[in-house]
């Protein structure tokens, strides 16, 4: 019977571990709490939630933004750029275009379905681009593998596709109909502001494809307010709130310790 009790305890422990792992992770795109292929749990970057006091010695990454920037936040980013800070905006949906306009940049993200013949995978959206500009982000890198990127217009090109690239508007995976071959830029810069038309470069599954590029980014911080690196999971958000709010952490510890102390106190009285 005792052996069975241990077995039950072990099973309960394992089940508890599984439930904890399930509740504290997510499958949301780009989420820092997503350890799967499309998450950013392995991205070696510190998350910041205040743009007011940015360190210009680090790179600030805005990853797949989906929240608008207030005038104050735009002002903070402009001050960061003026102070010599490097801002990298990775976006393939065009959500960053209003921010780019507010920052006075001529660069724009043009969403589409870029596909290329220059690939060694079957999927035409997973292809190789060439480094064409001289930039520290791509130091020691000749080619990069992109994953369904968007084209970037304006600025000084840094990453360029081969001439055998097309916007696969009909999504049939081949060049057909009115589609034509042509070169596209997927990363460009204007001063300290860089726009990368492929946020997928930062998901866990892509680290092995471009290790040198990730290495060149260090030290890097991620804007946790506007990027899609967060989560909608209430459990994870509660745990994060507790971790980042000292009084809440203290209250939780107290909730755990006080009942035990009370029980021990009662036993001694008896």
């Amino acid at each position, binding site marked *: 019977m005792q052996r069975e009790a241990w077995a039950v305890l072990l099973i309960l422990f394992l089940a508890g571990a599984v439930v904890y792992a399930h509740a504290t992770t997510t499958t949301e795109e780009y989420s820092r709490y997503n350890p799967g292929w499309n998450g950013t749990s392995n991205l070696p970057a510190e998350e910041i939630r205040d743009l007011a006091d940015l360190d210009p010695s680090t790179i600030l990454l805005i990853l797949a933004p989906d929240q608008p920037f207030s005038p104050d936040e735009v002002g903070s980013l402009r001050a960061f750029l003026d102070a010599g800070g490097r801002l990298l905006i990775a976006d393939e*949906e065009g959500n960053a275009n209003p921010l780019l306009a507010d920052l006075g940049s001529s660069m724009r993200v043009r969403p589409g379905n870029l596909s290329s*013949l220059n690939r060694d995978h079957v*999927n035409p*959206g997973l292809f190789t681009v060439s480094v064409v500009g001289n930039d520290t982000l791509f130091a020691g890198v000749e080619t990069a593998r992109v994953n*369904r990127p968007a084209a970037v217009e304006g600025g000084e090109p840094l990453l360029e596709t081969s001439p055998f690239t097309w916007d696969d508007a009909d999504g*049939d*995976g*081949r060049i057909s109909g009115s589609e034509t*071959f042509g070169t596209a830029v997927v990363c460009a810069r204007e001063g300290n502001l860089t726009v990368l038309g492929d946020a997928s470069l930062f998901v866990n*599954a892509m680290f092995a494809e471009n290790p040198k590029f990730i290495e060149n980014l260090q030290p890097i911080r991620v804007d946790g307010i506007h990027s899609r690196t967060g989560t909608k999971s209430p459990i994870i958000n509660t745990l994060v709130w507790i971790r980042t709010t000292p009084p809440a952490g203290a209250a939780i510890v107290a909730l755990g310790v006080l009942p035990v102390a009370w029980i021990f106190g009662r036993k001694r009285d008896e």
Partner: protein
Amino acid sequence: MNHRASQIVLATAIIAALALLAGEATTPLLYTAANTSTAAHVDPATVPKQTGRDADALIPLMGDLLSQTGTLTLNIKLKDYESAERDLARYAELSGRFDRLVINLDVSGTDIGEFQRNNRENLAALAALLNDTRRLEDLQRIEIDIQDDEGQRTTVIYEGETLQQKLQGGVTTYAGRENATIQIADRYGVNTTPYRESVRNYVEITGAVEAGGEKSPPSPLGIAVAPDTGRYGDTFSIAGTYAGGSPGTPIEIYVDSRIAGNATLDENGAYTSIYRIDRIPAGLHLAYAVAGAIYSGVTPFSVRQDDTAITLTLGEGEVCTGSLMTAGGRPVTLAPVLLRVDGSTPIETRTDENGTYRASLALPAGEHAIRAEFNAAGYPLNASESPTETIVVRNEGLSPLPFIAAIAAALGSGWYLRRRNRPEEKAPAAEPEESRETEATITPPQADIAGLSPREAATVLFWALRSRLGLPDTNTPRDCARLIPAHAGFFERYEQIRYAGETPSEEELRAMKEEALGGEERAA
């Protein structure tokens, strides 16, 4: 829940789990995830790799092809025919590589496909240029040698005139492709200078030939083509007369220097041959006739481009069938058809005399998208492709191996559980070796203890009593004592002898024997 019931539940659960696993064994999702993707990206680890699609080689190859035309025509112009032969062989090899690449990359319908078609025609034109210029030079040499033989000289002159006319027609078509080819090449940054030079060289070569040729009276062998224009599948009548030719004289008809038909001179000195437009590029073509050593003049005709339509039907057993027709409803016969599986792997088949094709594919299990394509290279036809059809290939039954493994695992589990239920039957560590060996040779339940050691005798008596009481062999002394309290003393004493290594006295053995054989009960 008692112990045995829980074991049955456990065993059932194991078998059920194994059965479920066996059902998925051939297509386990867990480790065969494929093409995992979202709208924003795909998981590279799950996307299959592809080979033979080296797009990086396209532009260098285009450059090599254009460069080869310049060298080849220069060598023809310099009359270095040996070098020109080598250049032509190299050009043909590069063209073959380019053709394969275009098919593998599935870009026949693009400007790269147009470049490929132009290149094919350039290759044919330059091959004809090399042959014709070399033959013309030979004829000029022969003409000098046979100055005194008027008959032979006239023959040579007729052939020379035919070749000159062919070359004139060839330069028109070769130069006609220049703009389109250069436009495509410029788009990809390919150096077009050698190709431009090749056109100039071509014009110079044909100009020099024309200037150097000697005019002769009209050939006695006439030729006419009717109609002068047609499409794929149309027939031309190539006919003429041979003044002075005897009936039955064989006539050979050539189209673009290739033999295209045979005819025989009739009693009126006339001949007729039917030529059907098949695999011949659209554009201007040249026909001439040869009767022995007499060449006719060269007469042109043109072939117009036509559209095509290809169908695809997927049948049982992964059989693909379909037809290839022109816009006018004519079947395209003996033409190559590509079946492209999942957008990458091309499988080639061919239409029959009715323009239909049939191919059996060997596909792995899963869903596959198949499309039929007609490349049209070398035909006066436009390329076409069928709508993409989907086929689901099912597994060919489940492999028996997972089931055999499951049954073996279940039997093994049962055997193990059965052994676990009688651990006490295993020999204790303290047991002397000879004692275990002796026990193994004893056949229970016998009560004959003569000649046995006291401890062995006690074991025999224990078996005898357990057997007499109808207890299963799996019961240990402690189980027996619990089940039959009336003999608890016997069993507890035996337990001490068996496991504590004690040796029973003769008196104890006698008492145990009596109890084992039921002496007390009988006496009672």
